[in-house]
Every structure is written in C-alpha cells, then in structure tokens.
C-alpha cells in the first residue's frame, strides 16, 4: 500500500525510476528493425527479392504471415541459440568468454547518456522538480560517451587474441589499429561543435541547436569528418577491415559460434544504432523539430498583424500540442496509406502472374493492405480530432512558484510531448542508420593502408584546420571567455 501511495504522490519520480529499464528495452526493440532494414535495403540496392521465405501459417484461414522478412530475425535467433556452443580447445578460455560481452555492454550503456526528450519541469509539492531526458545527468556527458566507446575496442582485441588463431589475430589487430586511429579524428571533429555551444552536456547541445540551427549547417566539415569516423568506429563498410572473407575468413570472430557470435553481431548493430543516435543528437538537432524558425502571425491590434519568427522548441510544442500532434499523426497516417498502396500494387502484380502460390500471396497482401489502410485512416482521424479538440493550458501557479519563469504543464502534456520527441529522435536515428546501410551496400571496401592514410594524413589535418578556424570564428563572433 505504501508503494502505491508513493507512486501516486510522485508520478514523475516513478517515471524517472522506470526509464532506465524502459529505454534499453525499447532500443532492443529497434534492433530487429535495423537488421530488417539492412536485409531489405541490401536486397533493394542489389535488385533482389530479399528475405521472403520464413512464415507463420495461421491455421484454418490458409494465410501465411511473412511480416516483410521480420521473421528471419526469429529464425536467426533460434538457429544461433541451438547451435553447438563450441569452444576451440586452443583458446585462452577466460577472455574468449569475456570478449563478446564487452561490445554489448558498452552499446547498452551509451544510450543512457543521450537525451531522448527535453527535460521536464514539474511541480513537486512547493518546489520545482526536473526530470532529465538523459538517464545519467552529468556535465561531461559526451566525454563519458567517448570513454565508453573507446572501451568497446577491447571486445575485438581480446576476442581476437584469445581465439589463438592467426586469422583472428590479423583481423583484430587491423580493426583495433583502425579504431584507435579514427578515435583521434572523431574527438577533434566534434570539438568544433563543442566550442560553439560551450558545453559537453548533450542536452545543452540539443537545446542550442533548437534555438540557432542544426549542427550539420553550423559545422558541415566537422559533421562529415564525424560521420566518416563513426563508420570506422562501428567497423562498417568501407572500413570493415575487422573481417574479410577473401583475406582472413571471418576476422576477429572466426573462432566464435552460436550465441557468442550473436553477441558480437548484436554489439555491432547496437553500435550502429548508438552512432546514428549520436549523429542525430550532435548534428541533426536531437529531439528538436526544425532547423529554422517558422513565421507566425501575431495580432497586434484591430486588423493588423505582425510576423514573428518562432522557434518550435519544447515549450512551443507544449503550448500547441494539438497542432503538433495533428501534423505528426497525419504524416504517419499518410505514410501508412502510401505503404498500403505500395502493397496493393504488388498484389496487382501477383494477380497477373501464374505463380504456384499466387492465391496464398494475394490473400496475405490483401490482409496487409487492409490492416495498413485502417491504421493509416485511424491515424488521420486521430490527427483531425487532436487538431480540432486538443488544447493545452499551463498550470496556474501561486506563491513562490509563480516567480519560476518556465511554464509548467499537466502530466499528460509532458508525457505526450516526451513521446513525440522520442519518436523524433528515433526517426532521425533511423535515417542515419539507413545512411550506414546505404553506404555499406554501395561502396567497395578500402585497403588497410588506404584507411590508415585517410585517417592520419587527410582527416586528422582537416579536423585540426577546422578546429582552428572554428575557434577563431567563435572567438570573433561570440567573444568567448
């Protein structure tokens, strides 16, 4: 009973206690989406059909649900879980078992430092409390993120060394040398952004971007350098020297099988996810909606109005929640209807063919078309409803709290705003993740010496010059201290 009373009295604190469990769980749900995106993206770029075989039969209806290849994740999981958990007899046992856990651990810790929504100010008795958008609130958030990132190299190093195989060792040495090299240009390229904002705190960096413009427009060179360094840090193509089927078999995970291999793969996709989220946070405005202010007409008297350039920041969202929700839901609904239309087109294609399983597939596609149409129409109806009927007012305050400059809204407004902002971050993250996949299946891989030359002779120098110019400009414009 005491617990329920406490939860009722402290709703925001309860949410603050739940979030550290909820956000990693939600990110684990994004992970299979990323794998699906990679599979379908690869098939799309290579003009293949892609994953289309695994299905769940629904008895009685004759339907087969393939869920666009999503079931391949499940079959992969089952396959890897039930494989023999083979440990080579020549391996250095302790580190062989430890290594796969390191990338997963660092990949799960780093999201705790990213701001997923704007800090929420709430009324806590006679005081103002703040629920931060990050799970760990520290003034040196970005540094801690880089520190954890630099620890993830140990997974590759220890895994390759303890396998006690020449291919593993070669892959691990190439990968670790590359990751150490690109950490230098990664740190230097992000310093320009930090100089302009004047803080290591990621929430402040996002807040600055919400009132000036996105980082990629302020620091285009730094953004490109950081993007390339992130590719190298994630061991993604064109920097995937850690493995190479034609040269060193599987690279650092040659001797790994089953669940241990799966953990390496999970770590890699987690790193892609975290790198995309970091790019979205540092250079694409994080949870902020737009990189520019919107013109708003404000009535100044009878029949006259004035144009005010308004940033769509968190408090504007909270004040105009109905409209923002209408736009977001409407866009999602239109996307869903477009998707349904796409599948209807596929179905029409099938109707003209004489494939063996034509009726089966047509029934499945009809189900998808119907479901997504209903979902999309529902979303658009919700958008219209929220645009017409949803109005938010800040809580009126008395006494000492009235002096607090920031408006405070009821709990449901905070919750809806946080969910919208979380979706904005995840949306930008998925766009960057698609960039990772796009590059992987488009560009050929670099040779090892080319990678080292690019890292030390080109990117490091550009990053240094960029930092110098940024420092001079920031001092000249901002004054600095």
């Amino acid at each position, binding site marked *: 009973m005491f617990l329920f009373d406490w939860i009722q009295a402290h709703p925001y604190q309860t949410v603050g206690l739940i979030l550290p469990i909820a956000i990693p769980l939600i990110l684990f749900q994004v992970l299979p989406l990323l794998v699906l995106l990679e599979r379908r993206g690869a098939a799309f770029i290579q003009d293949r059909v892609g994953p289309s075989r695994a299905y769940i039969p629904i008895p009685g209806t004759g339907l087969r649900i393939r869920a666009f290849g999503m079931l391949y994740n499940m079959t992969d999981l089952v396959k890897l879980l039930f494989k023999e958990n083979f440990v080579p007899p020549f391996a250095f046992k*302790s580190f062989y078992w430890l290594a796969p856990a390191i990338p997963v651990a660092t990949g799960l810790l780093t999201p705790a430092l990213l701001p997923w929504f704007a800090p929420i100010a709430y009324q806590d008795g006679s005081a103002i409390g703040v629920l931060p958008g990050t799970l760990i609130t520290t003034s*040196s958030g970005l540094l801690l993120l880089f*520190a954890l990132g*630099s*620890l993830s190299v140990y997974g590759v*190093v220890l895994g*390759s060394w303890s396998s006690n195989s020449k291919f593993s060792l070669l892959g691990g040495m190439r990968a670790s040398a590359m990751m150490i090299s690109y950490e230098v240009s990664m740190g230097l390229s992000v310093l320009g952004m930090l100089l302009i904002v004047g803080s290591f705190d990621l929430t402040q960096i996002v807040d600055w971007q919400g009132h000036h413009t996105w980082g990629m427009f302020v620091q285009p060179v730094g953004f490109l350098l950081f993007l390339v360094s992130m590719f190298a840090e994630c061991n993604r193509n064109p920097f995937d020297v850690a493995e190479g089927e034609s040269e060193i078999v599987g690279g650092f995970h040659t001797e790994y099988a089953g669940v241990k291999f799966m953990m390496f793969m999970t770590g890699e996709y987690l790193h892609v996810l975290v790198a995309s989220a970091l790019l979205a946070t540092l250079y694409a405005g994080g949870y902020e909606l737009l990189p520019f202010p919107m013109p708003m007409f404000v009535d100044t008297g009878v029949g006259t109005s004035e144009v005010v350039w308004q940033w769509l920041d968190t408090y504007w969202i909270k004040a105009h929640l109905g409209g923002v929700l209408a736009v977001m839901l409407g866009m999602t609904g239109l996307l869903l209807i477009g998707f349904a239309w796409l599948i209807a087109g596929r179905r029409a294609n099938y109707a003209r063919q004489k494939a063996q399983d034509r009726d089966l597939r047509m029934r499945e596609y009809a189900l998808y078309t119907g479901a997504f149409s209903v979902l999309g129409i529902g979303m658009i109806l919700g958008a219209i409803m929220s645009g017409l009927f949803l109005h938010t007012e800040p809580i009126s305050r008395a006494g000492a709290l009235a002096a607090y400059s920031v408006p405070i809204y009821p709990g449901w407004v905070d919750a809806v705003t946080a969910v919208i902002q979380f979706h904005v971050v995840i949306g930008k993250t998925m766009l960057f993740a698609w960039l990772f996949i796009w590059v992987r299946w488009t560009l050929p891989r670099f040779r090892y010496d080319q990678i080292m030359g690019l890292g030390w002779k080109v990117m490091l120098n550009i990053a240094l010059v960029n930092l110098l110019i940024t420092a001079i400009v920031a001092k000249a414009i901002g004054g600095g201290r």
Partner: protein
Amino acid sequence: MFHSLDQLLGSAYFALFALATLLCAGGVLLSKHPINAAVYLIGVMLSLSGIYVLLGSPFLGVIQVLVYAGAIMMLVVFVIMVLNQARDHRVPRFDGFSIVGAILPLAIAVMAVRTLAFTEASTIDPAKVRGEIGPIAYTMFDLTPAGPGYYLLFELIGVLLLIAVVAAVMLAKRHLDSPPVHEAAGEDGHAQH
C-alpha cells in the same frame, strides 16, 4: 550512522569500488601471464575512476576511463598482442626483484595508515570540490595576470608531448625509410668522423 540514502549508497559504492581496486591490483601482482596482468590493470583503472566520481570529480573519473583504460591500456594490450613471445611466456610469480618491489608499497601503506589514524575524518562538500568540468576549465585557463598561470604549464606539457611524438617518428623513420645501401654508406660516413 548514515544520514541519508545518498550517504548509504555512496558508502556502499565506495566499498565496492575500493574492494574491486584492491582485488584487481592483487591480480596484477600475482598473475603469471602478461595479458592477465594488463586486463587486471584495466579493472584497477575503471574502479579508480568510480572512486573519483564518488569523491566529486566526475571529470577526472571520465578522463581516467578515456585516457588510461581506453587509450594507454589499449596500447599495452596491443603491444602484448603483437609480441608473439607473450603467448607462451609465463613469468614466475615471485623472484628476487619481488622483495625490492614490496618495500615501496609497504612504506606507502604505512604512511597512509599513519595519516588516517592521526588526522580527523573530513567530509567532502561537493559544492567546493572543483571536479566539475566548468571549475576545472576556469581554474586552468585563468588568463588574468593575477591568476595561477596553469595554462602555461598546460601548453608546455603539450609541446613536450609533441616533441616526444616527433622524436618517435624520427626514430622509426631511420629504420623504415632508409634502404640498406644508404644505411651502409651512412655507417661508413659515420666512421670517418
């Protein structure tokens, strides 16, 4: 004994990190294989950074992870990996040098115990600890003439590190770039001097 939950948790975490530091340090001393010792040393660095954070210096803790655990120990592990000898080479746990090596830590331990026993317990006021990133920056880069001038030391250390890097490059260049013929000629020339 504990005034609040924060204090209780702080003490518990301090005990945890201190124990981890001591255990890992013991592991460094007692392991026979160099890579075991290196990984134990990483453990020491990580738990030390936890203690720094508890003492009100999150910046120092983060730098400890970034520089020592992330960069320097990475290089140590890398070198052990590259040296093929390390794989089968196991050193004896104790030898004659251990006696010499034991004296210094024992002396430090005696001094620490003496200091702890004869001074009053102090508490840390987080507001006064200059461990956050802002106070460190303002202290270090205080450019006023009356300031401590730490920035000069900082720049000088930077130059020193740069000199070390240039020296390392020069040493490596002499071995890598010069073809054998030139090497012989150089030695001849050296002999003439």
